[in-house]
């Protein structure tokens, strides 16, 4: 586990106890009929031992009501048996549905990375166990205050620049930590940013995450939910870096300020044209090499949108202030080589300039988050909820600025 210098936050002391699942499967499917073996008894004790360990983990938690159900997982509210006041979320991955095809990459990725990462801004995986019906259960940190999307969309929730700075700070630290550990998240968006009871923002859903590829090895460009997908992926780049996540962070930043998604294309092509309109047309001049990308579309020479400068961002996002607009601009730079890295984002002067970020305990909040957590944790990576912003109101409260 990559331990962050900050706190570890397990509800139980023995959070890393081995998650023993149904170990006997290979053997149960591979052993001969019960009575035919001279050494069967010892085999049974062996099997019981592994099951016992799994049971121990399972017994640590009591499953409560169902919070949400998606195509590949069901999420339950759970609590520690020894301390009923400490909650967890139990994400049960539907193995049986896809049993024939083995465990899905989403499930594998989620377990793989959350096992290693420990940081205050990344959802914690406390335990893994199997249930009787041979499903994988992930015991996750309980995050009852919903997600950023919920706050952005609710017109009754008023927030200002200091709050945006606090949320963005927590997001940026989580993303930085992933990149520091050579992991790309590849699905950053408001409804994957869940909120803990103390107001801390946690990066969740590692179903699309992967390690940085070795140099010159290709990765898929079919990642990141469209509205948050950077131009290099839309153009089909197969080799990319952590700055794909920085673009998504920029989009979340913009959305927090506007309270609607900033560039919301209906199709991938529409997304490209909306990005061009908003930020400028990518050309060999502002982005050397862009025309070599597989899905690059040569721009219409008569409709070239010049690369937008600081003025545009300031005009478009007045509530960000000049320093905030500068940071946003550096996160939304078309050429990935010129875009800021997560580390550089954290070094920007915006964080230390006025207003100071709101203390996490004082951030605006909203009830009904438990249900939202259930929905968020069961969604498949990369899915867009197209109706999400139909009634979104452009309401911002700048009194706090």
């Amino acid at each position, binding site marked *: *586990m*990559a331990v962050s210098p900050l706190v570890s936050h397990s509800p139980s002391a023995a959070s*890393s106890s*081995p998650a023993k699942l149904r170990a006997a499967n*290979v053997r149960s499917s*591979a052993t001969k009929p019960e009575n035919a073996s001279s*050494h069967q008894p010892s085999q049974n004790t062996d099997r019981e031992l592994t099951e016992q360990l799994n049971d121990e983990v399972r017994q640590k938690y009591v499953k409560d009501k169902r919070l949400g159900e998606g195509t590949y997982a069901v999420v339950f509210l759970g609590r520690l048996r020894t301390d009923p006041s400490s909650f967890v979320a139990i994400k049960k991955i539907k193995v049986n549905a896809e049993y024939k095809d083995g465990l899905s990459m989403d499930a594998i990725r989620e377990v793989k*990375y959350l096992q290693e990462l420990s940081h205050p801004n990344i959802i914690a995986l406390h335990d893994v166990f199997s249930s009787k019906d041979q499903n*994988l259960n992930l015991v996750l940190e309980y995050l009852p205050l919903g997600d950023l999307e919920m706050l952005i969309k609710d017109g009754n929730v008023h927030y200002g620049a200091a709050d945006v700075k606090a949320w963005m700070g927590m997001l940026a630290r989580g993303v930085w930590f992933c990149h520091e550990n050579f992991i790309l998240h590849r699905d950053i968006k408001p409804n994957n940013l869940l909120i803990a009871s103390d107001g801390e923002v946690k990066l969740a859903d590692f179903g699309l995450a992967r390690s940085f590829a070795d140099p010159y090895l290709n990765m898929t460009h079919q990642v990141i939910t469209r509205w948050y997908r950077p131009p290099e992926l839309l153009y089909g780049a197969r080799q990319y870096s952590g700055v794909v996540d920085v673009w998504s962070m920029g989009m979340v930043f913009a959305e927090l300020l506007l309270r609607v998604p900033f560039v919301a294309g209906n199709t991938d092509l529409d997304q490209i044209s909306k990005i061009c309109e908003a930020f400028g047309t990518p050309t060999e001049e502002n982005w050397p090499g862009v025309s070599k990308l597989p899905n690059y579309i040569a721009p219409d020479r008569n409709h070239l949108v010049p690369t937008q400068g600081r003025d545009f961002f300031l005009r478009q996002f007045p509530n960000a202030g000049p320093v905030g607009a500068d940071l946003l601009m550096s996160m939304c730079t078309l050429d990935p080589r010129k875009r800021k890295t997560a580390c550089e984002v954290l070094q920007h002067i915006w964080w230390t300039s006025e207003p100071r970020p709101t203390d996490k305990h004082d951030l605006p909040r909203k009830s009904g988050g438990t249900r939202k957590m259930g929905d968020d944790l069961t969604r498949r990576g990369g899915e867009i909820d197209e109706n999400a912003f139909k009634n979104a109101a452009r309401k911002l409260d700048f009194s706090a600025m």
Partner: protein
Amino acid sequence: MAANYWASTQRRHWLFTREKLAEVRDKQREKDMVAHTQFPLPDQRMLNIYFSQQLTKLGKKTSTRQQALATAQIYIKRYYTKNEIRHTNPYLVLATAFYLACKMEECPQHIRLVVGEARSLWPDFIAPDVSKVGECEFSLISEMSSQMIVHHPYRTLTELQRELALTSDEVALAWSVINDHYLTDLPLLHAPHVIAVMAIIVAVVFKPSQAGFHGSAAPALAGAMREGGMNMLTALGDKSGSGPPPRIQKLIGWLAESEVDIRAVVECTQELVSLYEVWEQYSEKNCKELLARMVKTQHLDK
């Protein structure tokens, strides 16, 4: 590669001392003495050679990266620290470790393809039903406590290549030495960077006599190491006579300034030497027959 090795589950949960590993295996033996007497198996390293060769065949058919094969070999090792091999169908474990490792190393293969290829290689041991591999995958993950990220020495080798100005022949030989270390218990005993340094020393000290090593370094190294291998490092430190050639001196200088555990590096070298010795008695036929008898007599393939 992902995350930080020093804080990784690999270092915290899957690094054994030699004594601990021996204890784990003794316990397995005590638990089922009958099976151990009834089904004798070759030396662990012989079995590892056999498994590795079988995995390589599977890898060739699916053009899979070496790194996924390495990860699969680690999974097999981890699995058999928790499970008595005599209670399993090793061919099913092999195919499943391969299937899971491919997903883990981001070069996924469809389960049907893996089962199909495995079946064509080991028709007597793999059932056509893909759900067997599905079940076994679940078990494999659980036995590994869902700790699946493996740190390999290859990356360290690539990183040190420039710093130590290694020639491409040296890198190729070191690479093969790393491939070979998966045939021993070393991956469960030492950190990947220690292995990488060991491989580099071996490659630089025993100048590769021929170019192009893919796969094993054994043919090129076995003889050379037997002659002077055991005392190689002591010889390096020997200041008498003209001393080691400058190239080796440079490496020694780098080692001295690094904080790499030299004692561990020496131990790894010795382990490798003894692997190459054991290798000379390796018989594929023998492994195959003993495994077949073990699986068939107990009907573990059903």
